[in-house]
């Protein structure tokens, strides 16, 4: 078992998978490390081929879901939810007078990601954190690469529409604010 190669292939998708389950960045990274640790320690039980993304992904996914359940039982889930709510509150309050640029654009993007369907958000997280390959994502999710491809396509399309809607809304809000200010003057 080449641990470094395994980490290189699955690090991003695993962090993304945990993040899509609602964990904070730190917890998602921690749990991803735990997954590799457990996979390494229990490597003798794995009878498949580590080079096969489908087989290795299925093994890692099982460990990930169990570790996540364990993490949740320790009460951390509750804290994650609170953190996520706080984050969402920030995300939904971008400066009304400015265009979506820089930091605000990131916040808007994260807010839009939060509104996506779960399966779409998951593949976006898994893919775009490190630009990971479709084979690894498919292996972890237990679906075909074609399916991952389709979800990414639909997720991007939906995300664009959400952002365009937010953009227009902000423009309208900004114009209304300016008009109101003009009238008062």
């Amino acid at each position: 078992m080449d641990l470094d190669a395994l980490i290189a292939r699955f690090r991003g998708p695993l962090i993304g998978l945990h993040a899509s389950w609602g964990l904070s960045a730190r917890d998602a990274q921690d749990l991803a490390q735990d997954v590799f640790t457990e996979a390494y320690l229990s490597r003798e039980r794995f009878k498949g081929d580590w080079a096969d993304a489908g087989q290795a992904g299925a093994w890692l996914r099982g460990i990930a879901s169990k570790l996540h359940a364990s993490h949740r039982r320790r009460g951390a889930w509750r804290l994650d939810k609170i953190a996520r709510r706080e984050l969402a509150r920030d995300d939904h309050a971008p400066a009304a007078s400015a265009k979506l640029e820089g930091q605000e654009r990131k916040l808007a993007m994260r807010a839009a990601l939060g509104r996506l369907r779960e399966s779409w958000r998951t593949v976006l997280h898994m893919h775009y954190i490190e630009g990971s390959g479709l084979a690894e994502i498919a292996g972890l999710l237990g679906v075909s690469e074609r399916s991952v491809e389709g979800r990414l396509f639909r997720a991007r399309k939906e995300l664009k529409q959400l952002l365009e809607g937010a953009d227009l809304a902000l423009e309208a809000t900004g114009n209304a604010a300016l008009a109101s200010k003009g009238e008062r003057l």
Partner: protein
Amino acid sequence: MTRDGQLAGAFGDSNRGVLDDDFGVAIGEALEGLRQDPEDFAAGVRDRIAERETTSGPRPGPTMFSAWVRNAAAFMPPFLIPRGAVLDAGLATGGLAVKKSVWKWAPGIVAFPAILSVMLVATFVWGFRRATIGDTQGSVDDLSSLEARLWWKQHRLASVVVIVGLVMLLRTSPFEAVAIFAILSMFALLGIFGALARAGLASRAEIGQRTGQFLHSMVIYAYFLMSEWMPSHAGGWSRVALPLLPVIGGSVCLWLAQQDRVGWATRRNQRVLLPIFTSVAITFVLFFALAPHHTTREQAAEYVERGFLTEEEFGGEVVEVTGTYRHLAETKGSVPDIEPFHQALLQHLEHEEFRPAILWDHAASGLLPDRAYDFSRDAKGEEKLTEYRRPLRHPQQMYFHIANRIREESLSDRQRDRIARQVVDGAQGKVPYDALEELSCRVAILDLLDRPKYVEQLAEPIELALLATWAGAPPLKLACFVSSPNMVKRDSEGVPKRDRFSFVHLPDSDHAVRLMLRFGVPAGVQVRALAAYLVEMSENMMWTVDGRNARAAAVLERMSELNGGVEPLDGSAWTVLLDLRMVIAVAVLVSFCVLITKRAPMSTPEEC
């Protein structure tokens, strides 16, 4: 641009992740907080491996934690699997490892129906909580319900197959077969928990919480066992035991779990209190509202005293009031007042046709008011009575002809003898439909004619008819008499086959008891099984006693004479064990739960 064109642009040729288009870059930037330096990440993994390899004790080997259990746990939703077992990373993830040895899945397959039933209850509870409490933002149950949804999605086909299979099994096999299957499945599920505990992969808090919740959720199923598995003469306590044992056992398991103070501290109390409250509430509702109740003598007497008659149910009500009153009057205790019923009967006869086939029994019991006989007169029929020369085939139709002639004392001794002979001759030959009622009527006519020596001649046809209509199939748990020998299902060797019996057979069983009280119980008829049938028929729902319940309760009361005088109840230890088999099975299951909880190791602070 087509979808494929867009995808090609988005992902490039390498099939590797790309951040090369503007939108992809923007998404990547939004997620940059999740990114970690690859070197730091890999170093973190190595540190954890080194720490685990140096500090942790020997990990459970295959002998401690067998592939059987590991594979069985793969069928479970994550919330059912203890945390300690989760940390043994091989658990529930070894699909690839076991594909070549399908037999290793056996425990999981056996446990699947039990897991399915737990999931049904859990899904119901979460749905109920979501509906009543609303969206539980931030609640631990959020992910549990998510896991439950995922489990249903993954196991929908298997669930449908199991449910359909169980329904088919219920329709085609005795209930015992399904119950045995379900209990085996529950033992398999508990065995998995026990194995996890033995391997040190689950703490007492974890095991106790699950066994406690499992037993509390069993209360719902206990209701069905209770209604199907009624010990015939074991008394009400055994029925109460069925749902009560899981409640007590579940509470003991939860108490044991609380002894593991370190592990318990990580749990939330409401997750325990809710199932306890729910199961106690359900038990209360089941017992005091939905569960069938035995009809008492007083309730049967109240039914008679209601004194109502409806046009639609006239026949049934007369027959049931007659049967109930007759038996109550002939046993010790208060006798109901039948006068209101007679008032209603006379009003009915004022404007309705007199029906001798229904009223003969009432008259034969000495209950019919004198005024009612006026409606029964049939001058032509009574005149022709003495002209008959053939055996009497339909005694119920002839009863009032004979009764009226005797009342006006217009029958000579010779005529009485001839009619008695005709009555006896009519009972010879093939056992007809409604044979037992007919024979009861023949006995009543002979009593009316005061010809006891002819009554004795009916003993043989009565024994034949009783045996021909006795539908008792071994092993005898519950049986009754039926209207015709054709209604007794028999195998190729003539042995009756098991059947489900309903209230339809109550009149036949009533007449059979009367005949047996007078002529004795033929060898082959088990009074105890008949008593079990009458117990079932006497059960009323929601405390509403109808005619069938009252009649069955009255006949049952009368049977005490039969037990003492003719055939004692079979009260051997084996019979009692057979009767209580479901109570024993539930008790063993509960004991098993308590045992595996008690034997589970306490948590250590490190685990929490």
